C-alpha cells in the first residue's frame, strides 16, 4: 500500500508511458528526418550501355559528368560535397563494363543507394543475357512466377501460410509480457523484503502475522500494484501514441518492428487475391480461442509470477543489502531468457518438438514457452499435449 502511494511509483506510473511514446515518436521522427535527406550522385558514364538508366527520384538525384577524367571527377565530387561518384568505364562487353564499374564515396556507402545501383546493373545484365539466349522478357517474366503449395489440416480447414507466425507472435507477445512483469515486479518483492530487514520492522510484523502470510501478502500486493501500473501504461501509452502520431503526422506502419511487442515476426507475403486472403487471415486470427488463450495467460501468469517472486523474496531474505543481490539475480533471469530464446528459435517452428515439450515441463520456463505454443496448438481440435499439460506444468 505504501508502495502505491509512494511518489516515485506514482510519477513512474504516469511518466513511463510518456517516455515510452516519446522514445518511439522520436525514433520515428528521426528516421523520417534522416530519410528526407536528398542524396546527389554524380555519374561519370563513358559507356553506351547505361545511357539513361539513372533517373532522379524523390530521394536521390543523379548528375551526369561528361568528358572529364576519373581523377578530376573524384576531386570535384569531393569538393562539391556530393554523396558519391559512379564510374562506368567504356568497354565493348557489358559484363566487362559492369565488372569494372566503381562507386566512390567519402565513407561507407548507404545500403539503400547501393541496392538501387546494383538493381540497375542486374536488370541490364539480365536483359543482355536473355537476349543472348534468345528469350524475350515477357517469356522470362512468365517463367519467374512463384508457386506456393496449398495446405490444409486433416479436418479440411484451409491453412494459411504465415498464420502460424502471427499466432506465434501473439503467443510470444504474451510470453514476453510475463517475462517483463516478472523481472520488474519480482525485483519489487525482493527490495521490499530487504527494506523490511534493514528497517528492522520485520520482527514487529512477524509477531503479528505468519511469515507465509507476510510473503503471500507481499507478492499479491506487489502484483496487484504492478497490474494496475501495467494497465495504466498500456492504456495511456496507446492513447498517447495515437495522439502523438496525429500531431507529428507519422505513419505508424512506417515504423519497423520496435513498434509493438512481438511484431517482429514476419507478416505473410502479399498474394494475388489479397483481399480474400486478408479475410482468411482475419478469420483465422478470429478463430484463435481468445478466451481460452487469455485464461491460460492469466493462469500461467499467476503461477509463473508466484514461482519467480518467491525466488526473488528468498534472495531478498538471503542478502543483507541490495548490492549483494546482483550475483543471485542472474540465475533467475537465465531461465527466463532461455525460455524466450528457445521460444523464438525453436518452439515457433515446431510447437510439438521435444525441445518445446521439455521446456514446457520445466517449471521455470513453462509459463513463457507454453504461451508461445498455445495459440498455434489451440486452433486444432485435437492437440496431443495441450489437454493435460496446463494442469501439470506449474
Amino acid at each position, binding site marked *: 500500500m*505504501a508502495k502505491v502511494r509512494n511518489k516515485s511509483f506514482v510519477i513512474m506510473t504516469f511518466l513511463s508511458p510518456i517516455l515510452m511514446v516519446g522514445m518511439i515518436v522520436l525514433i520515428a521522427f528521426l528516421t523520417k528526418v534522416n530519410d528526407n535527406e536528398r542524396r546527389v550522385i554524380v555519374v561519370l558514364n563513358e559507356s553506351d550501355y547505361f545511357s539513361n538508366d539513372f533517373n532522379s527520384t524523390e530521394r536521390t538525384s543523379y548528375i551526369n559528368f561528361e568528358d572529364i577524367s576519373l581523377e578530376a571527377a573524384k576531386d570535384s565530387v569531393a569538393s562539391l560535397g556530393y554523396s558519391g561518384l559512379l564510374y562506368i568505364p567504356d568497354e565493348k562487353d557489358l559484363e566487362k563494363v559492369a565488372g569494372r564499374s566503381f562507386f566512390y564515396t567519402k565513407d561507407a556507402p548507404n545500403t539503400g543507394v547501393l541496392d538501387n545501383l546494383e538493381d540497375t546493373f542486374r536488370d541490364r545484365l539480365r536483359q543482355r543475357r536473355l537476349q543472348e539466349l534468345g528469350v524475350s522478357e515477357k517469356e522470362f517474366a512468365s517463367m519467374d512466377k512463384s508457386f506456393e503449395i496449398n495446405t490444409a489440416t486433416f479436418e479440411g480447414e484451409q491453412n494459411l501460410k504465415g498464420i502460424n507466425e502471427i499466432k506465434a507472435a501473439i503467443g510470444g507477445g504474451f510470453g514476453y509480457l510475463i517475462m517483463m512483469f516478472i523481472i520488474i515486479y519480482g525485483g519489487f518483492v525482493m527490495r521490499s523484503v530487504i527494506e523490511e530487514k534493514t528497517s*528492522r520492522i520485520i*520482527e*514487529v510484523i512477524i*509477531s503479528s502475522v505468519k511469515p507465509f502470510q507476510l510473503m503471500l501478502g507481499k507478492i499479491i500486493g506487489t502484483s496487484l500494484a504492478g497490474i494496475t501500473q501495467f494497465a495504466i501504461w498500456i492504456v495511456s501509452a496507446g492513447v498517447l501514441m495515437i495522439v502523438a502520431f496525429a500531431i507529428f503526422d507519422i505513419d505508424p506502419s512506417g515504423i519497423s518492428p520496435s513498434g509493438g511487442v512481438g511484431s517482429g515476426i514476419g507478416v505473410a507475403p502479399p498474394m494475388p487475391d489479397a483481399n480474400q486472403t486478408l479475410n482468411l487471415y482475419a478469420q483465422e486470427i478470429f478463430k484463435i480461442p481468445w478466451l481460452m488463450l487469455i485464461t491460460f495467460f492469466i493462469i500461467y501468469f499467476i503461477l509463473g509470477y508466484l514461482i519467480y517472486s518467491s525466488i526473488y523474496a528468498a534472495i531478498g531474505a538471503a542478502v543483507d543489502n541490495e548490492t549483494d543481490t546482483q550475483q543471485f539475480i542472474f540465475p533467475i533471469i537465465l531461465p527466463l531468457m532461455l525460455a524466450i530464446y528457445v521460444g523464438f528459435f525453436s518452439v515457433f517452428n515446431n510447437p510439438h518438438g521435444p525441445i518445446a515439450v521439455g521446456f514446457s515441463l520445466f517449471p521455470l520456463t513453462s509459463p513463457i514457452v507454453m504461451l508461445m505454443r498455445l495459440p498455434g496448438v489451440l486452433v486444432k481440435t485435437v492437440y496431443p499435449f495441450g489437454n493435460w499439460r496446463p494442469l501439470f506444468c506449474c
Partner: protein
Amino acid sequence: MNNILVTNGVTKRFGNYTALNNVSLEIPRNSIYGLLGPNGAGKTTLIRIINQITFPDSGTVFFDGEPLRPNDISNIGYLPEERGLYKSMKVGEQALYLAQLKGLSKIEAKKRLKFWFDRFEIGDWWNKKIQELSKGMAQKIQFIVTVLHEPKLLIFDEPFSGFDPINANIIKDEILKLKDQGTSIIFSTHRMESVEELCEYIALLHQSEKILDGKLSDIKKAYKNNIFKVGLEVEQGEILLKELSDTFEISSSTYTANERQLDFTLQLPNNDTRNVLQYLSSKGNVNQFLETVPSANEIFIRTVKNKGTYE
C-alpha cells in the same frame, strides 16, 4: 489460573548450538516479570518462542492455561529489541496498518491512536514520515503500536534503549499504569536499576539455562548475608570495636573521636538481631542499624559468576 504464561522444559537448538536448554518459567498474571541474563543467554530466543516466531524443539508453552495457539498473537504485544518502522511511511498510516494487523478494526484503531497520541502530545506527528522523526520519537510510536491492541501480555525487550532519561521515565510510568490496568508484562533487559524499580518477579538466564527465578523480594531475602550497617554514638569506640570483633566479623569501621561516632559493618551468624541490638544499645546510643540488601545488580553478577550456587 494464576499464571498468564508457563513454559515447560523449553529447549531450542540452532544446529549444534543450544540456545535454550530445558527452560521452565511461570509468569504470574498481572505482574512485571524481569527476564534477565547476559548477552547471548537466550532471552530473545525465549521471547521469540513466546511470540511464535520460532518454535521450540521440545517443551511446551502455555498461555492463559492452554497450549499456545496462533490466535494468541492478538493477545500478546511485543516490542522487539531489534525494532524499526517503515521509514518512508507516514506515522499515522503506519500505526493504523500495524494495529489492523493485530486485529483491530480501522475505526477502533483510529480512536485508540488518537487517545495515545494525545496522551504523549504527539498529535501533530500523524502525517510525518518516520524518517523525519528522531530515534526517540520513533520509539514512542513503536511503544504505542505495541500496546494499542490492549493485549493481556506485553513483552518489552530493552524498552528504554534509545530514550533519554525524561522519555524513559514517561515510558516507565506508562508501563506501571498498564500493569495497574491488569496487564501482565515480561521485561527483558540488562539494565538492573530498571529491574529494581519495576519488576516483582525475575528469572535469570545464563548460558541457555535458567539459573534463578522467583519473586524479587524473596530472592533478595535469600541473597542477603545478615550484614548490617551500624552507627553508634559511644565513648571509646576503639575498645567497643575490639570487644565486638572478638565475637563478630567486623569490617570497614571508622571512629570519629570528636563526634564520638562509630560506624562499622557487622556480619551476624543468623538474622536474629535482638541480642546484638540489646548489647549495642547498652553501650551507647544506636543511630543506625540497617540491613544491607543486595541489589539486583549484585545478585546478577554474583549468580552469573558462580553459576548454579543458588537453589
